[in-house]
């Protein structure tokens, strides 16, 4: 309702396309009637219930949740993807979010053996292997160590993995929703390792979860000592159970599978373990039959979240195009947007903090007169990496890689405002 009034208000504005592809002065059916000829809005002229009667008092909602009008904004799964919900994934509703922080309850989930529900009093973290002193820490111990706060994106390596052979899922929640961006509070892993004392020949660590999958991954020691955190909080409160409560690894810029949740053990060693998740999974099969392994870093990537198939254009005239960009190698330097399928590009406006290994938010304020658009975005990171097209990526990787698909996404906007995930040639 308020949406409709804002359309009519905004649609009085100019209609010149932001990218220069929209014809100026095109007659629009949605043009509002002259002011004064409409009936008064009863939402203004009549006293509404919420204006007359008392609302709920404090403590009715001791832990606040979103408005009942926002109930449809939830994580969603794609049931056919996996054999069981305990070893599965769901997706962040990117098209319903703004800014760069993902609300904790909307961060996508990926479990290999369901959510481990652990009383923090019963949680232990062990460090063993090639160390001077194998140690056991309680959560209390960890919370007595010097801590830091960092905002990082976590992207599953399989994000967009269903799209290698062409457009498959019709919504950015499903094509790009295996990503979230939250503020972590935790202890640098180096602090913990210093307590145990690494032997000089340590080259790799193995991180292991306390869940029923005992999720384990090998991590090069250089990364471990550089910026890895052992986190106990996200967005200012304890980790959510589905995000590894009470303790998880934070491996900035690297694929989500390495960010072991419910972290219970770190073993120091002189070579990688070749665990299931770093051999049979999370390796990238190329067209020649060989497979790339240890592809930890997430390449620069972006997606337009609005408009997108789940968030169609409802109004001619003024609109906001919005999206997210990120890079595992650093920060986002620039994002370009095309409205004509990659023929012409304009540089989007980055707004809000643009941080290292964090999501960045971009906008293009544009006018739409009902013509067909092919919307794309292209991220450029601080190392100069330019997000490739899907075809450029297929040329060097084939279509069987599953992981690390960071190709440019195309949304087709039809004249009625409906939007489709399409592949263009």
């Amino acid at each position, binding site marked *: 309702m308020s949406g409709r009034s804002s359309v009519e208000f905004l649609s009085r504005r100019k209609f010149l396309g932001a990218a220069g592809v929209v014809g100026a002065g095109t007659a629009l059916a949605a043009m509002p009637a002259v002011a004064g000829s409409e009936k008064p809005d009863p939402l203004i002229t009549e006293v509404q219930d919420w204006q007359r009667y008392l609302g709920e008092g404090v403590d009715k909602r001791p832990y606040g949740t979103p408005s009942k009008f926002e*109930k*449809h904004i939830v994580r*969603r*799964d*794609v049931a*056919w993807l996996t*054999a*069981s919900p*305990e*070893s599965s994934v769901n997706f962040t509703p990117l098209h319903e979010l703004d800014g760069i922080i993902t609300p904790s309850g909307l961060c996508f989930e990926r479990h290999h*053996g369901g959510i481990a529900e652990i009383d923090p009093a019963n949680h232990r973290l*062990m460090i*063993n*292997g090639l160390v001077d002193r*194998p*140690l*056991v*820490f309680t959560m209390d111990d960890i919370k007595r160590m010097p801590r830091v706060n960092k905002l990082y994106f976590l992207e599953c390596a399989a994000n967009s993995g269903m799209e290698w052979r*062409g*457009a*498959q*899922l*019709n919504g950015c929640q499903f094509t790009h929703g295996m990503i979230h961006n939250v503020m972590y509070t935790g202890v640098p892993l180096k602090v913990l390792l*210093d*307590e145990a004392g690494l032997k000089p020949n340590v080259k790799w660590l193995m991180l*292991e979860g306390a869940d029923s999958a*005992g999720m384990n991954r090998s991590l090069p020691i250089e990364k471990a000592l550089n910026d890895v955190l052992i986190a106990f909080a996200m967005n200012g409160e304890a980790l959510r159970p589905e995000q590894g409560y009470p303790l998880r690894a934070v491996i900035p810029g690297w694929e989500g599978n390495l960010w072991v949740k419910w972290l*219970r053990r770190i*073993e120091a*060693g002189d*070579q990688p*373990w*070749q*665990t299931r998740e770093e051999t*049979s999974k999370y390796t990238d*099969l190329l067209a020649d*039959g*060989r*497979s*790339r*392994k240890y592809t930890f*870093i997430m*390449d620069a990537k972006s997606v337009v979240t609005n408009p997108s198939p789940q968030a169609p254009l409802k109004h001619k005239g003024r609109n906001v195009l919005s999206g997210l960009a990120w890079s595992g190698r650093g920060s986002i330097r620039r994002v*370009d947007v095309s409205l*004509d*399928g*990659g*023929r*012409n590009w304009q540089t989007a406006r980055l707004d809000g903090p643009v941080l290292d290994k964090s999501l960045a938010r971009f906008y293009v304020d544009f006018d739409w007169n009902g013509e067909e658009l*092919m919307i794309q975005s292209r991220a*450029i990171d601080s190392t100069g*990496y*330019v997000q*490739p097209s899907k075809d450029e990526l297929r040329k060097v990787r084939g279509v069987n890689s599953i992981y690390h698909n960071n190709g440019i996404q195309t949304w*087709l906007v039809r004249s009625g405002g409906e939007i*489709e*995930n*399409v*592949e*263009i040639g």
Partner: protein
Amino acid sequence: MSKLVERFALLALVGALVLSSVVPSPAQQVAARHAASSASAKLGLGRPALPEEIKAWDTDVRPDGHGLPPGKGTVKQGDELFQAQCAVCHGEFGQGVGRWPVLAGGLGTLKADRPDKTIGSFWPELSTVFDYIKRAMPYGNAQSLSNDDVYALTAYLLSMNDIVKDENFELNEKNFRSIRMPNASAFFGDDRETSERRFWEKEPCMKNCRGAPKVVGRAITVDVTPDSKSGPKVD
């Protein structure tokens, strides 16, 4: 909760009684704090991990045999275990039931249009099989198998994948490292920064970058997207 509070109160009382006789002067306290902060990195947090504790959790196995426990099991024994505990998901012959993982077959398909990535056709190391079964299988009843069970199941998986032919074959900690997996040599380390160098070298085009784009594929014709009109019911 109240019990916990009581215990804290009691501890505080005991602490106060003990400390009252030996409490250092404020000056001594400052000196001690200074000494602690200027000492080397150690915080003095955590406690030594006991050998029994390390043994209980440290079950991981590496390709070089690190962590491989003593034990043994034959293909035949593995077959029995597999049919009883694994076949419900993975199928009698490891062919996979529904969307559960396929464990056998697929040899020579990695260059095919639809590769079949199984233990035999894809996994580079046998130690991965042992490590994973030991920690995570059977699904929903993890860490319930003995080391001999895991040796037997691993032997059966080798047999299903024709890597060993003899059903009397026994896998143990001594011959484990002699097994070579068919796809072992087909993996290489991340080289994207050289093999995909072109993604850094390109000056992004801004105007008239390509011809008119044509739609060549549409997600809605594939029709595999969950209904997006309404979310699942949330109370």
